[in-house]
């Protein structure tokens, strides 16, 4: 029986999002487990079920005999309306039962714009949305994932944050929970026990004081919790990534989802150190899996899922130390089963083009480059180790190989950006067209399809640019227009909505007070703010004003280097000192070598793992 009845299901889009029962989904006897865990993804099924980390933790928890983890995804607004009309509450896909009586409600926070959905899901679950209002018998609400690294914006809603990689930490937390359950302790007792686990942060054990100018004065452990809570919460990492947990099963959705294939993480972390990129810092150190291990995982997953495609996942696949032999090995194993291999986001050189042609049946279109900035000066500022010569040479190789479609990604509003840098974007695109014409000179060829796509820079915590200002909305629009005018009409131009980037920036670097804004927006109907058709900028601006906060304080203000940042109580390994030095080098236009060339002492070596200890 489905929790939502047929009459309602018949009226909503894609009802199979809500009915569960997919191949490899896990159904257990609820009376035979100690822990029921509602694992929430604050977006629609199609997005959540495309996310590798979400599936991985799902299977990891279900591999425990004592735990039943269920998937809970945000109902699309058409269903939410019906649920509220009929007094239905949020339910788990596996048991088709309400989650309000579960032991845990866990969120993986992938994107700040999903925060209104977090509040909405708690409300739909009929669980008090604020941590302070939860009583004995209510579930514990926990959160992890990349956006959880700035704990403060959701601090009033979440009971427990897990900082960093969850594979080991979650087991420890579940073990402690069982101990607590046996001891029949109070709610607060479990929070105390949890706070002692490395990587766990319990926001209600801390208090924040602010300076008159609105900046944080202190963020410290409350006197009565000194024995339990840590001043500094250090991110967890899985040191031995080679042998880290990997599920040999994977839920196979019935309905089309965005990424509907086997995804295998070939390494974690990124050697590069682009200064705007949060992932590049928070996932350090770089840790690789061996060819043998990846092949073993691929074989098991092909067998257990029947998927027709295996895709390699990492932050920069070209940096995998033996990509060629990995692909050869994988192909030998999966090709006879008529399974394709997908290799995304490669740096383009002759090796990778040959590889791409060999491994995947990609149509000869759609190569992407991400120079991010239009001049060498600005690319040095952001430490993007790529030159115009690289790009032109790669384009030439691609054009000679029969490709005619190139997409270029750039960011507008990077620190120190001038109009010259913006015009440099147009310049580069035009030079690529020249290269195309040179390659095909005197021959009839298809028109080249060059697309320039720009997003707006969003400064993120734990990057060297965490102190930098975001440019104003008017300025974003002016710069977009400047570029639009400068571009030859043969070039396709696409740009991101600046309003979303502004709200994202405010939430990314927000403090505890910004939590009130999220509640206000949600109360006024805010949902699915990651979706352009639902995001309402004016609603956000009004909410900041009503809560007595100035949004530009969070977006357009350059922070003082000595300022206490709202996330200073979290350490991701990379030190604040290193980030400061990186910012200074950025301002001087100096680059920093990547981890493969040289260790630059970022701080991630404290984990004694991966590239930090590998011999070479």
């Amino acid at each position: 029986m489905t929790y939502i009845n047929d009459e309602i299901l018949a009226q909503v889009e894609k009802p199979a999002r809500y009915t569960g029962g997919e191949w490899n989904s896990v159904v257990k006897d609820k009376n035979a487990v100690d822990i029921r865990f509602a694992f929430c993804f604050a977006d629609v099924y199609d997005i959540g079920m495309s996310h590798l980390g979400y599936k991985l933790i799902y299977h990891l928890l279900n591999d425990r005999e004592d735990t039943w983890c269920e998937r809970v995804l945000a109902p699309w607004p058409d269903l939410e309306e019906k649920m509220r009309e009929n007094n239905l509450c949020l339910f788990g896909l596996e048991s088709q039962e309400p989650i309000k009586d579960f032991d845990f409600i866990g969120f993986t926070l992938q994107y700040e714009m999903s925060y209104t959905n977090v509040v909405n899901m708690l409300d739909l679950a009929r669980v008090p949305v604020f941590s302070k209002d939860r009583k004995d018998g209510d579930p514990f609400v926990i959160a992890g994932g990349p956006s959880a690294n700035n704990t403060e914006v959701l601090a009033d809603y979440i009971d427990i944050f897990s900082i960093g990689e969850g594979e080991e930490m979650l087991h420890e937390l579940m073990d402690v929970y069982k101990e607590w359950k046996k001891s029949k302790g109070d709610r607060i007792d479990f929070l105390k026990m949890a706070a002692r686990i490395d990587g766990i942060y319990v926001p209600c054990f801390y208090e924040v004081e602010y300076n008159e100018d609105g900046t944080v004065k202190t963020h410290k452990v409350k006197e009565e919790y000194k024995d339990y809570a840590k001043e500094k919460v250090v991110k967890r990492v899985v040191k031995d990534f080679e042998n880290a947990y990997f599920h040999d099963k994977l839920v196979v959705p019935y309905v089309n989802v965005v990424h509907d294939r086997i995804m295998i993480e070939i390494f974690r972390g990124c050697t590069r150190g682009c200064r705007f990129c949060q992932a590049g810092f928070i996932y350090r150190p770089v840790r690789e899996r061996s060819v043998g291990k990846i092949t073993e995982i691929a074989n098991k997953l092909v067998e257990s899922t029947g998927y027709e495609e295996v895709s390699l996942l990492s932050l920069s696949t070209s940096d995998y130390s033996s990509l060629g032999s990995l692909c050869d090995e994988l192909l030998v194993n999966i090709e006879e089963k008529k399974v394709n291999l997908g290799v995304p986001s490669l740096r383009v050189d002759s090796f990778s083009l040959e590889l791409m042609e060999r491994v995947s049946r990609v149509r000869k279109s759609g190569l992407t480059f991400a120079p991010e900035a239009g001049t060498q000066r600005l690319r040095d500022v952001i430490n993007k180790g790529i030159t115009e010569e690289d790009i032109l040479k790669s384009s030439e190789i691609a054009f000679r190989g029969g490709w005619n479609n190139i997409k270029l990604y750039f960011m507008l509003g990077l620190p120190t950006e001038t109009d010259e840098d913006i015009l440099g974007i147009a310049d580069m695109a035009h030079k690529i067209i020249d290269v195309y014409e040179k390659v095909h000179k005197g021959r009839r060829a298809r028109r080249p399809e060059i697309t320039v796509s720009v997003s707006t820079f969003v400064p993120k915590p734990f990057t060297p640019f965490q102190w930098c200002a975001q440019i104003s909305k008017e300025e974003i629009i002016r710069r977009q227009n400047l570029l639009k005018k400068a571009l030859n009409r043969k070039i396709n131009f696409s740009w991101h909505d600046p309003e979303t980037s502004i709200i994202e920036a405010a939430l990314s670097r927000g403090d505890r007070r910004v939590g009130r804004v999220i509640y206000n927006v949600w109360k006024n109907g805010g949902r699915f703010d990651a979706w352009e058709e639902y995001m309402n900028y004016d609603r956000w601006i009004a909410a900041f004003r009503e809560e007595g906060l100035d949004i530009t304080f969070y977006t357009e203000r350059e922070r003082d280097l000595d300022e206490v940042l709202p996330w200073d109580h979290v350490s991701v390994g990379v030190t604040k000192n290193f980030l400061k030095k990186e910012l200074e080098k950025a301002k001087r236009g100096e680059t920093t070598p990547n981890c493969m060339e040289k260790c630059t002492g970022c701080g991630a070596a404290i984990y004694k793992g991966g590239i930090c200890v590998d011999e070479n």
Partner: protein
Amino acid sequence: MKIRLRYAKGDEIKYISHLDTLKLFERASRRCGLPVAYTEGFNPRPRFVFGNPLPLGVTSECEFVDVYLDKDMIPEEVFRDLNSVMPKGLRILDGKALSANADNIMNEVSRSEYVVKVEMSGDDARKVIELYESNSPLVIVKKSKNREREVDIRPMIHSLEFNDQAFHIITDAGNTSNLRPEVALIALCEHAGVNVKITGIHRTKLFKVSELLEYGKGTGN
């Protein structure tokens, strides 16, 4: 070789569309190592030919798929292997080997029978049956992309009975003419001035074009 399988779609997967069911078969075949033949060309696809699509939300005990195999297998083996890797709600019921030149299932079916569960009084149901038996035209407005047209759907309905709070109805199904049972029933009820609430639809039989013989059970023989 070519094998025709008959399968049932239960409540658990009635919201899985026709296209997604196709994907489900592809993946299940790979899970159990079925030697499915692939199409030639740049983007090889496994060779499955499915029968008339089942509308979303409808269950069935007579869905058909023709599977092409690279190796000879006995039909029982094929459906046993597939059943071991199918999600709840999908069961292969039987299968039979077809000659290579047998027509595809898609071209063979012309009518199907459904059981439509309703909430309705016996008196109201009688009115509906009477209207059906009067043979009077049953005109509905069909909307296509940019125009509306009136169609008499009465000739597309071939049988209607009521028992156990359910209508048993036979309508056109197939490539040339197709009428969904709920569309037929709602039109009949409207014309009879009767309210209807449909609580479930289940497909029970398919009929062949040429002979209009019952095509449901017994295909395994």
